[in-house]
């Protein structure tokens, strides 16, 4: 379908999206770069001035920086792990013939519709809260001392909340992928003498690899930006145990109102995000083309 006419039509039709996204990307980016070289604290505008890489140096050498990177990675990988593994298991489960497939599916995807602040508030207050939360009640019921989830295992708790929100997404994508697996392939493996576990390992899992990459790619993009959940539940603490890179930037931007340092942090975050992205896109590119 490539005549001159259709190609130029395509260019015309593509351009609004490309131009808009380009502007959306480049204008804030340039401004951010500009600010990142300036001392620019909203609260002390009189001290505005050009300071070369000072903001970057301050941001990167801050004692929380490396911890934040590690926390970011743990958060992203933790959520990915739970959602992918959980998603596969749930997809396998609801792919089978059961009564009430519709309602079950509705229940399973429900968390996807919940706005992040609500999810975080509900989990924090009604589940994790060590005195009034349901988990505390459950611990009580079996005679244990309540566990202070957000205090003792802040990052893990946040991972649980975020994973809960993203589990439906992973499940749905994996489920559609699972349903696209030809039953003949499974039957062939059965004829070939593969028992269920081996069929899963040798046939189903490889078939899902593409869907898994898609889940990983999309979720990573969203997960790198997780902020509200941290803000509502732990505020990055205790200490800096649940401080991620995004949260660190947030602290500069909305606690210190240091627009310059926040910009520098943002640029650092973008660079790191893009390293992750290139990594991912290499992988997914391979998988998407196949």
């Amino acid at each position, binding site marked *: 379908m490539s005549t001159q006419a259709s190609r130029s039509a395509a260019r015309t039709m593509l351009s609004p999206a490309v131009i808009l996204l380009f502007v959306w990307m480049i204008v804030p980016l340039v401004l951010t770069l500009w600010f990142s070289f300036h001392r620019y604290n909203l609260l002390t505008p009189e001290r505005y001035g050009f300071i070369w890489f000072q903001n970057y140096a301050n941001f990167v050498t801050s004692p929380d920086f490396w911890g934040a990177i590690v926390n970011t990675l743990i958060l992203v990988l933790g959520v990915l792990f739970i959602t992918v593994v959980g998603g596969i298991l749930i997809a396998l489960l609801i792919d089978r013939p059961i009564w009430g497939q519709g309602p079950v599916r509705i229940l399973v995807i429900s968390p996807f519709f919940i706005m992040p602040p609500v999810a975080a508030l509900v989990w924090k207050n009604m589940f994790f809260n060590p005195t009034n939360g349901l988990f505390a009640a459950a611990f009580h019921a079996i005679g244990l001392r309540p566990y202070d989830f957000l205090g003792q295992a802040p990052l893990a708790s946040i991972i649980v909340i975020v994973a809960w929100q993203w589990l439906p997404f992973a499940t749905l994508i994996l489920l559609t992928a699972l349903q696209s697996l030809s039953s*003949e392939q499974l039957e062939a493996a059965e004829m*070939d*003498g593969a028992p269920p576990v081996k069929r899963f390992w040798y046939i189903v899992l*490889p078939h899902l*690899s593409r869907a898994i990459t898609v889940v990983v790619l999309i979720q990573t993009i969203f997960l790198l930006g997780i902020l509200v959940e941290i803000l509502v539940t732990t505020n990055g603490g205790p200490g800096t145990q649940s401080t991620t890179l995004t949260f660190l930037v947030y602290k500069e931007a909305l606690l210190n109102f240091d627009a310059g340092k926040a910009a520098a942090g943002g640029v650092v975050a973008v660079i790191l995000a893009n390293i992750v992205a290139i990594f991912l896109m290499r992988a997914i590119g391979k998988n998407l083309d196949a």
Partner: protein
Amino acid sequence: MGQITLSKVAKRFGDAEVIPPLDLIIDDGEFVVFVGPSGCGKSTLLRLIAGLEDTSDGRILIDGKDATALGPAQRGLAMVFQSYALYPHMSVRSNIAFPLKMAGLDKAEQDRRVEGAAKVLNLTNYLDRRPGQLSGGQRQRVAIGRAIVREPAAFLFDEPLSNLDAALRVGMRLEISELHERLKTTMIYVTHDQVEAMTMADKIVVLNAGRIEQVGSPLELYRTPRNLFVAGFIGSPKMSFITGAEAQKAGGATVGVRPEHLRVSPSEGPWRGTVGVSEHLGSDTFFHVHDTGLAPVITVRADGEVALSHGDTVHLTPQADKIHRFDQNGLRI
């Protein structure tokens, strides 16, 4: 060994009886083709034998032992699927070796058998490719390879050629026949294409709506079809059926004549009509004759050199000894 006996085997999906109780014996080493129109239950029957579906009734014996309750892997059969069902993420080598790996054979033995099968099937140069990088015919061969290495008691094929193009189909058909000649293993082959059935089978089982219409060798079916269904199904182009007075005269409610048993002449013969489309194959020519008053269209095979054009009037003479007569119930007289 690979003698398979079906005794009163039936299959129901919910309330729908797809296969009414049916008996069939497949001898060791035979090439049996199940043929019939789409939806008649061929695949279902094959899958019952494979163990991929549970029988609703009856018993399946393999080499005399009751296999009705065995799982697909325990029956010692191998199956080649219509879609090939290759594992797309494995190399050809791993695909073929997969059943051996599952059986726990050691690596050296696996390699030996894979190499052997690859040689037989001309796949040696493709062992390291993925199925996605192969042509249709090559994929088909890989699927067969995967079946061969298991050295099964019988091979089951479910329309293995229907995804290939015409030329390849002919080639692969030959290859499978040759394979059968070489291995002498029982093969059960499902197709809806009567040409495939005729050319490949030792024994054809014609199915219609789950019932067996006739079992026999290709030539038996060709020469003495038991009823109208088989008569119409076997032979290409189709037999033409004549009803009415002319049929009564010949001694049946319906009379069938195959295109190759009609002589065409511009001037003489009992039946008269006009030529419609003519198909020149070089070797032969098929004329479609209309307006005979006997049947909507009568197909005639003539020599490749006969030249008649659209609208010409022709006369047809059936070979008297090659006429098939059927009674009101469609049964052969």
